[in-house]
């Protein structure tokens, strides 16, 4: 889930169902700018920045608390997690996270954050009530992506140089399986039913779909875009629709987002967005996709029903993560 995490699947679905049709919902889009050191809040109606919140240095991965009152932001250059009060738009406290936190994930029911420490080959387990790191899990070189199963029993961490997805039992905090992937695995996301884990390999240029039960790769999805060199296709952010039908993958410097059929794994379309697209977030009603474009410093808004890009808006310097609060 990582950079593009909302709350639990269940909470999301409930929010989606309670929403009026036509996307006229009072949700908000939050973007982290790794160079501006800010979080900006964008209104989906006006597609304008409503608020700019200064945070620690190099904000990247973000996740909301269960009640969406707090936003946890990895500020890697300050070696901590900043906690935003969403209503007031201010940083109210900071949590220890271990060195250079990049991506994090929240346990779906318990007040526990799991943080990847890129510089330290560790995943830190942060108890939100005690406000401290309560455990560390030794993983491969340069831990990055973090995904958690909908029932909270299994944590998946990717390590970029070891090229593996580590499956971690959240009760024992032991690694139970290691799945070898193409080069530089980045983002790991469970499907809404918990049956699969999708992992992007940035340098390998593929997305691996892992069966969460057998821990075997059931499909490796490749990409081909006419007129774009193969090495520019670098998958990072992944979003999976809750209905199990569609998947979206940000393809980095190819400036495209791939749309994939979750069932057949067939690539249906490539949406042209801004430069170096990092991460993605679906709107609560699953009709829009928001993308962070790190080099062109903007966010693209895709109408995924009509299959077209509605708008690009500047959001700050080097936008990286994006999450949606229903």
């Amino acid at each position, binding site marked *: 889930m990582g950079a593009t995490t909302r709350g639990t699947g269940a909470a999301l679905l409930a929010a989606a169902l309670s929403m009026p049709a036509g996307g006229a919902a009072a949700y908000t889009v939050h973007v982290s700018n790794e160079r501006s050191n800010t979080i900006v809040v964008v209104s989906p109606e006006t597609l304008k920045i409503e608020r700019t919140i200064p945070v620690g240095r190099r904000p990247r991965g973000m996740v909301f608390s269960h009640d969406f009152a707090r936003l946890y932001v990895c500020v890697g250059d300050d070696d901590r997690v900043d906690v935003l009060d969403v209503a007031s738009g201010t940083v109210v406290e900071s949590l220890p996270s271990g060195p250079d936190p990049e991506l994090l994930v929240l346990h779906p029911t318990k007040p526990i954050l799991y943080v990847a420490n890129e510089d330290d*080959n560790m995943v830190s387990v942060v108890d939100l009530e005690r406000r401290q790191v309560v455990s560390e899990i030794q993983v491969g070189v340069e831990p990055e992506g973090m995904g958690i199963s909908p029932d909270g029993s299994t944590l998946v961490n990717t390590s970029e140089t070891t090229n593996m997805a580590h499956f971690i039992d959240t009760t024992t905090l032991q690694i139970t399986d290691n*799945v070898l992937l193409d*080069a530089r695995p980045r983002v790991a996301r469970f499907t809404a039913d918990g049956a699969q884990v999708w992992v992007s390999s940035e*340098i390998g240029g593929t997305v*691996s779909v892992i069966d969460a039960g057998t821990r075997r790769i059931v499909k490796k999805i490749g990409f081909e875009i006419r007129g774009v060199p193969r090495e520019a296709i670098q998958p990072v952010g992944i979003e999976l629709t809750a209905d199990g039908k569609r998947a979206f993958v940000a393809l980095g410097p190819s400036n495209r987002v791939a749309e994939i059929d979750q069932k057949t794994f067939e690539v249906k379309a490539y949406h042209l967005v801004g430069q170096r697209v990092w991460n993605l977030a679906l709107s609560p009603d699953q009709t829009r996709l928001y993308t962070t474009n790190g080099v062109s410093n903007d966010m693209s808004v895709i109408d995924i029903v009509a299959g077209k890009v509605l708008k690009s808006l500047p959001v700050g310097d080097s936008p990286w993560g994006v999450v949606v609060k229903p």
Partner: protein
Amino acid sequence: MAAIRGMIRGATARRVLAGALALAACTAVVPVSPARAQPAVQTVPVGYLGQEEAVRTPLTFLRPELRDEGLQGARLGILDNDTTGRFLNQDFELVEAILPRGDDAPGLAAAVEALAAKGVRLLVADLPADRLARLMEHPGAAGMLVLNARATDDALRNERCRANLLHTAPSRRMLADALAQYLVWKRWDRWMLVVGRYPEDQAFAEAVRRAAKRFGARIVEEKSWTFEEGNRRSDSGHTTVQSLVPTATQGAEHHVLVVADERDIFGEYLAYRTWQPRPVAGTQGLVPTGWDRVHEQWGATQLHSRFEKQAGRWMTQRDHAAWLAVRAVGEAATRTRSADPAVLAAHIKGPDFALAAFKGQALSFRPWDGQLRQPILLAGPRMLVSVSPQDGFLHPVSTLDTLGDDAADSRCGAGK
């Protein structure tokens, strides 16, 4: 140490290629579960061969004298391999050997035999070109896959190439082409070339001339730097240099001064002192390099951080090339689940090999000359300026092959 199976002694290039094809057919990905099964640990010995030499003092006071350049990169490569190996029951061991100073044939023979006796069939060579060429002539090296992590000489990739010799260090032509692409992209296409007196300076100058021709720049004037070299510290300080450089760089109108001074004897003196106010590039100033501390993108900071914790200094191009060589072996062992050197060598040279190296894309070896294709950094003294290949320099297969010898340029018979 586990027994080494299937040594590649005497293996022909053809057999190695056949191995690669067999491998390609069976690279299905299966999960690994150390928690469920405990197979015997596979030990993968990786040789490192360096040589003792006089310590070179950099002209700048900001950089330390290096006594362990290359070796520290290889050691970090082993640590990185072992972190992954932990999950796969693979253990990597660096077998280090250092040749004595000078051209000592018995010393070389003894070292090669000792390495072979310790099971080394995959060898990282951290040697200058001539010593490396002698190593390759030794019968003991015939059964090894040698990864050149230091010598940038183009001849080693052409006339003197070998089927069992790969290069993780970039070639001079790659470096010169990387710089040329950037200068041409800037439309700074009139160059003054200032060349030092040593053979390696001449070799770099030759690569620069070739690059100018390839990418449409003009060398409008060439100068030799023939002044006496001296100590970097003297009580007379900067005044002599301040009067010397302007006259030495007087000449035809140019956009940029390109310097060839690989031994770092005078190049640092040029910037801000030239006759005309012109930027300096080449071996000093804006430097094309495989690795530099100013590089931060694509996760490079993590590698810097691990290296600095281990070595207590910055990682150089030579360290990075040695790290790459060891990582290439590690990557092959991970992908093939094998410790068999013949299997590893075949995978490294095969079509499925892809190495992530903090340079933004997967790296692989060119089949025609064994050179690792890689982006080249353009490092300023305090900031990264750019990374080549530059936009607009196209290639039908990989834009990385716009740097250095493409298949059609290659004069290597061994790989073809």
